[in-house]
């Protein structure tokens, strides 16, 4: 009797939370946590096209260190993440300021933001096709058509400056994410603060530097961290645009992991490369959490 009573108690206490949270916990464990566990296991095996896993110690990591192209690939990853991040965050902030602070009319701001969101809701393949058409080396490419207006010969931009092309394509599409977050953060700043600033005769510059930026510090931090993580692991736009080439010029770690696993069928080695990425992402999270005091930022807004 007592036992069933306790059961009812437990059910009453945990029943609703488990029904409400259960699906998400399940989803996160299956699609986020389990892959990391699998990658960690696979990274220490020699799994190849035969799909058999045999433990092979650290040899995948040794192979990575002796890979003649690994340093070029790491270098590419750093350049790619840094410059794309720069465009993502600053262009996102600039767009948010433009559409919320400078453009006072809400409908116009909304329209501009919607237009900027369009590439994000179109499939990556379509988005990249437009870039490919833009950079097409023949005289019919958009860039080369523009060049011909100034009597310049058709150039091979994608072959000669592949990394610039990759950063531009990724940076422009990524900016929309920051734009949305920053816009809503700026909008949540109480209007009387702006009025007070204006009564005091503050310039645009000081309103942005002394009022808006401090108020969006936490979203800035969040967007930066979020974009670092997603840029480290995203490769689909590079794969579609340059396939990592020519040679290894736009090959980044995430794409290299894909190529080793799904082109060379070295699943074990590919997992080892992916594991390095997971560790790097964890390291960044830790740095942001501790050094930049992100933990302090996840608190109620101090403005109100």
């Amino acid at each position, binding site marked *: 009797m007592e036992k069933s009573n306790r059961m009812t108690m437990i*059910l*009453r206490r945990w*029943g*609703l939370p488990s*029904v409400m949270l259960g699906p998400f916990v399940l989803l996160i464990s299956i699609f986020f946590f389990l892959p990391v566990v699998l990658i960690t296991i696979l990274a220490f095996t020699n799994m*190849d*096209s*035969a*799909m*058999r896993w045999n433990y092979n110690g650290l040899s995948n990591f040794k*192979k990575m260190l*002796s*890979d*003649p*192209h690994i340093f070029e690939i790491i270098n590419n990853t750093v350049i790619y993440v840094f410059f794309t991040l720069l465009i993502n965050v600053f262009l996102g902030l600039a767009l948010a300021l433009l559409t919320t602070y400078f453009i006072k009319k809400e409908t116009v701001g909304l329209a501009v933001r919607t237009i900027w969101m369009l590439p994000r809701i179109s499939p990556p393949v379509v988005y990249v096709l437009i870039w490919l058409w833009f950079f097409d*080396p*023949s005289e019919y490419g958009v860039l080369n058509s523009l060049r011909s207006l100034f009597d310049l010969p058709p150039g*091979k931009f*994608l*072959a000669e400056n592949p990394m610039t092309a990759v950063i531009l394509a990724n940076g422009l599409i990524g900016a929309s994410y920051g734009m949305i977050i920053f816009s809503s953060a700026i909008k949540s700043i109480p209007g009387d603060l702006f009025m007070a600033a204006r009564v005091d005769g503050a310039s645009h510059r000081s309103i942005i530097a002394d009022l808006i930026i401090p108020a969006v510090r936490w979203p800035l931090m969040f967007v930066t961290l979020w974009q670092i993580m997603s840029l480290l692991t995203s490769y689909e736009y590079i794969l579609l645009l340059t396939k990592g*080439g*020519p*040679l*290894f010029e736009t090959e980044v770690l995430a794409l290299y992991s894909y190529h080793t696993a*799904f*082109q*060379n*069928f070295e699943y074990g080695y590919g997992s080892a490369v992916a594991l390095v990425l997971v560790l790097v992402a964890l390291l960044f999270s830790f740095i942001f959490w501790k050094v930049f005091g992100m933990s302090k930022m996840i608190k109620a807004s101090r403005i109100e």
Partner: protein
Amino acid sequence: MKKTMTGVLATVLVCSSVLAGCGKAEEKKTAGTGVSATSTPEVVTLTAQTAGIEKTRVDNLVQASLKLNEELKSQGKNIEVKVETKSFDGSWPDYVKQFMLASQSNKAPDIYAIGHEYVGMLADGNYIMPLDSLKQSKAYSDLFPVLWESVTYKGKIWAAPQDTEARPVFYNKGILKKLGWSDQQINDLPEKVKKGEFTLDDMTQLAQEAKTKGAAEFGIVHRPVDGPDFQALAYNFGAKLYDPADNKLVLDKKAVAKQIQYYYDLAQKKLIPDSLTTMEWKNVHQTVVNEKNLFYFGGVWNVNNWVSDAFHDQLGKVDVKWVNEHMGMMLIPAAEKGGKPVTLSHPFVYTVSAQTKQSELVTRLLELVADPKLQTEHNVKTYHLPITKGGADDATFKADITLGKVAYMSEYTTFLPNHEGFSKYSSAVFKAIQAVELGKQTPDAAMKDLEAQLKNDLGDQLKIVQ
């Protein structure tokens, strides 16, 4: 509260029973072949898959199944074989990946058509079953003996050859005319190449002449992406790519250095388009068809490409007659005077999934599909070459003006190794060629990088020959 829990439990129950039901339905579909006593024949469905535009590879299996059903009927067996065909669009690695993953989830097609060089990888992974009995089969008794090599791995036969092809060098007759060649000289060129009188150096020199005299924009064009053609040059310089005794891939340093030097020279002499390896296939075809280029390392099936798609600026799609009037086909000239010219064939083969429950019926189907008539149907439609003597003697095949000109090339052919790690070897060599062509590396540096890369990628699967 209790209601919610009951609801959740009920949903889980319903879902799981639906899933279980699906599993059972699946089982039923593939179950047994036992001859039943009823008069309606038991239908056995076999699945066959191919990739690319050559759908005849699987359509021929459907044709063969009709014959098989007749045979079964006359033997008094109450079975009807149905062949379901599938075709894949995408790159070769993606195609293989799809088969491997399908096998992992027990959904592999019974018959899987693929380029022969994947046989090693698929055999090592237990994805396909050995087909040694085919060697004794009457249907394959007149198979060109070299083709058995292309499906042999670790001493066993793993597939039935389906077709083969020639990878000739196309030369533009119009450009040669502009250089003052007579019709007689132009038409004799393949013969001179065959005898080893016209060498690879002569080809380069002629390309240079065409370029300096303004007869052609480019001297030589090759494929823009990684592929078997590049290895034909390695064979031409005397390379051995595979050691069957040790089952190891070979890096023949002397020959591969010559191979890389060859492409470096082409780029230095500006005979190939700038950054050819970043060009689209479409642009390559356009360059070749529009008389902008003298020599093209192609494949006989390219005729099919030019006929099917509009590449010509004025004519759009060209016809076969036009191709034969404007282009000639020759072997890849020998590297040395008097040497043997080469070409490379990349036979397509039918492999049989290790999971098939109908191995006997599948084997009989593979015997029937080797029928010369069916071969010709595929060969003439898609510009490929027959695998058996019977196929080569077929009247319709012989009458084809394009194929008739390249049939002799089978005697000069070479193959890619059937080794599991070959795709890594091939892509590393391609990267080295790309590096020297784009002027990013000297041949020496590219060679050094290639060696380091191959050692790292292949480990003890590689043997280095100085």
